[in-house]
């Protein structure tokens, strides 16, 4: 579109300049407006591609079972009772509670354990610090499959299979990604603030708690948020360690199980269940968008 306006617009402008007249402002303005329209058209096309699946899923979640299997795209009639049905047919409240426990305690554990480690890796000087930091990074690259067999056996021996413990307890022993993100943030805290606290006689723990943690609240919020999301979405962990104990299924395993039991026949209920599952994190995102985007940019660009 902009190419076409180039071809038709330029010679006229040049002719106008040669003739010593002012370039008619409307031509330039129109060209700029055309480009803006083109830019927005492209951006809107992508927006439609990303949002359309949500629209179809929501619409289908309100259809009757028969209609959901047809080619119809608009519910007729709107069957709002689907949402009641899924709460009756599957113990969704139970699943949601398990998910909240996993995600909540997981976030707490990651924050409590990762902050001191990141502090020691950024604000205390010691020999080997850089090497240890590289090892922390390297653990992020390790495929989870390399460790799951022995971990499964350990958790089985501890009698933890069929409980949420194998999911929650490891969170209290530091998370490499969170340590990395916090360290990057702690490094940006001015040395003078920490020196001032040292001169005042504060010990390392006091400095961490009173100076660093206070200044790093956004980063701590970001890692808590990321861990919450990770746990909320996690499928492999609960699948592996639930050991078919329905009482500790999280939403991810519970809904997958529900779907497999009714595969490809209850699209309306499956879509309703998917909506119930995704809605909390989407709302969370809309409220905490800034922390998310900052966290991602921090890891992606400076990493």
């Amino acid at each position: 579109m902009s190419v076409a306006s180039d071809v038709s617009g330029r010679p006229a402008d040049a002719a106008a300049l040669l003739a010593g007249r002012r370039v008619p402002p409307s031509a330039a303005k129109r060209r700029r407006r055309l480009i803006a329209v083109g830019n927005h058209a492209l951006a809107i096309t992508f927006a439609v591609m990303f949002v359309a699946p949500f629209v179809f899923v929501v619409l289908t979640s309100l259809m009757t079972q028969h209609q959901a299997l047809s080619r119809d795209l608009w519910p007729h009639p709107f069957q709002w009772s689907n949402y009641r049905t899924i709460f009756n047919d599957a113990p969704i409240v139970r699943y949601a509670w398990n998910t909240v426990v996993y995600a909540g305690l997981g976030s707490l554990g990651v924050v409590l354990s990762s902050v001191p480690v990141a502090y020691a890796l950024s604000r205390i000087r010691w020999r080997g610090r850089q090497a240890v930091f590289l090892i922390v990074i390297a653990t992020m690259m390790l495929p989870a499959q390399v460790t799951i067999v022995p971990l499964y056996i350990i958790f089985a021996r501890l009698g933890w299979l069929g409980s949420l413990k194998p999911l929650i307890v490891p969170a209290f022993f530091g998370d490499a990604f969170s340590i990395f993100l916090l360290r990057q943030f702690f490094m940006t805290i001015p040395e003078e603030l920490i020196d001032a606290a040292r001169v005042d006689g504060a010990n390392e723990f006091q400095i961490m708690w009173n100076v660093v943690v206070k200044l790093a609240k956004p980063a701590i919020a970001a890692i808590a948020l990321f861990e919450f999301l990770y746990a909320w979405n996690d499928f492999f962990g609960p699948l592996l360690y639930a050991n078919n104990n329905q009482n500790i299924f999280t939403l991810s395993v519970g809904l997958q199980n529900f779907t497999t039991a009714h595969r490809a026949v209850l699209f309306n209920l499956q879509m309703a269940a998917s909506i119930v599952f995704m809605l909390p994190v989407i709302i969370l995102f809309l409220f905490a968008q800034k922390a998310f985007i900052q966290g991602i940019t921090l890891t992606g660009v400076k990493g």
Partner: protein
Amino acid sequence: MAVAVTVQATTAERQQLRRRRGRRRALVILAFMSPWVIGFLWFYVYPMFATLYFSFTKYDGIRLSPRWVGLFNYQHLFTQDPLFWKSLANTVWIVAIGTPLQIVFALSVAWALTRPKRGQGIYRTLYFLPTMVPAVAAALSFIYLLSSNGPVNSILRLLHLPTPLWFLDPAWSKPGLVLLGMWGVGEAIVIFLAALLDVPTHLYEAADIEGASAWQKFRNITIPMISPVIFFSTVIGVIYGFQYFTEAYVVGLGTGGAGANAGGLGSPNQSTLFYTIQLYHQGFEEFHLGYASAMAWVLFVIVMVCTLALIRSSNRWVYYQGGFR
């Protein structure tokens, strides 16, 4: 003389004091590091070597203790397990085709996002929303969206385009999974967007003066300037691509009709049998823990080799400003 003695005494004392303070400092550092140190030993070091040991044994986990079988698992894996090769081929497909497609798509979207002067925030929010959808919910949604009577095929029918059976057709199941992946590339978009906005505008202005075309500017300025971010996304994409699990597991079990047509792991026709799914099946459905351990180490070596090859290749195409690295 008396003075000299006291001086000597104080240096000794001072040394002792310094040593004691050094030891205390080491203890403080260890205390701060302890959560990670314990976690590292418990969740990484011991399991890694235990997996290596198990990979040379026959082991069902609970009843039997591991029985040493030497290289048998590896030998069987490479020479007598067609599903190992099938799952490896599927995984290489998703890494070699899915990952680059996602990166190119994310980069295109990010570029489109830099163009409008207003409304960037809203667009970015909308593009990022699908990334928030839990993998299981996204996979369930796509089972419906790509079903034979689903909305995607309705649109294709409207445009008089062929309507594949997607997750019911072995030839289309992996492309269906790639589409599902593309829906959730928000993180890459955000990272690419930040990188694109970081490219100094004076470079583009200089190119304009030289009369460079839009493509020349993109090829010779944008791509080199954001190459570190492309590199980072590629490495992460490859590492995660080899561990691709959840979506394929949910789709495999969640599609197909009742009875003989019922879906299963890898369905249809093992076209979505990825490496980690086969590993999960061997390890935690069949309880061939030794065999699964061998598979895990093979995966580890493959991922390491690919990552190192990428890093090795990076100094040919990744441009670090100011000669960083």
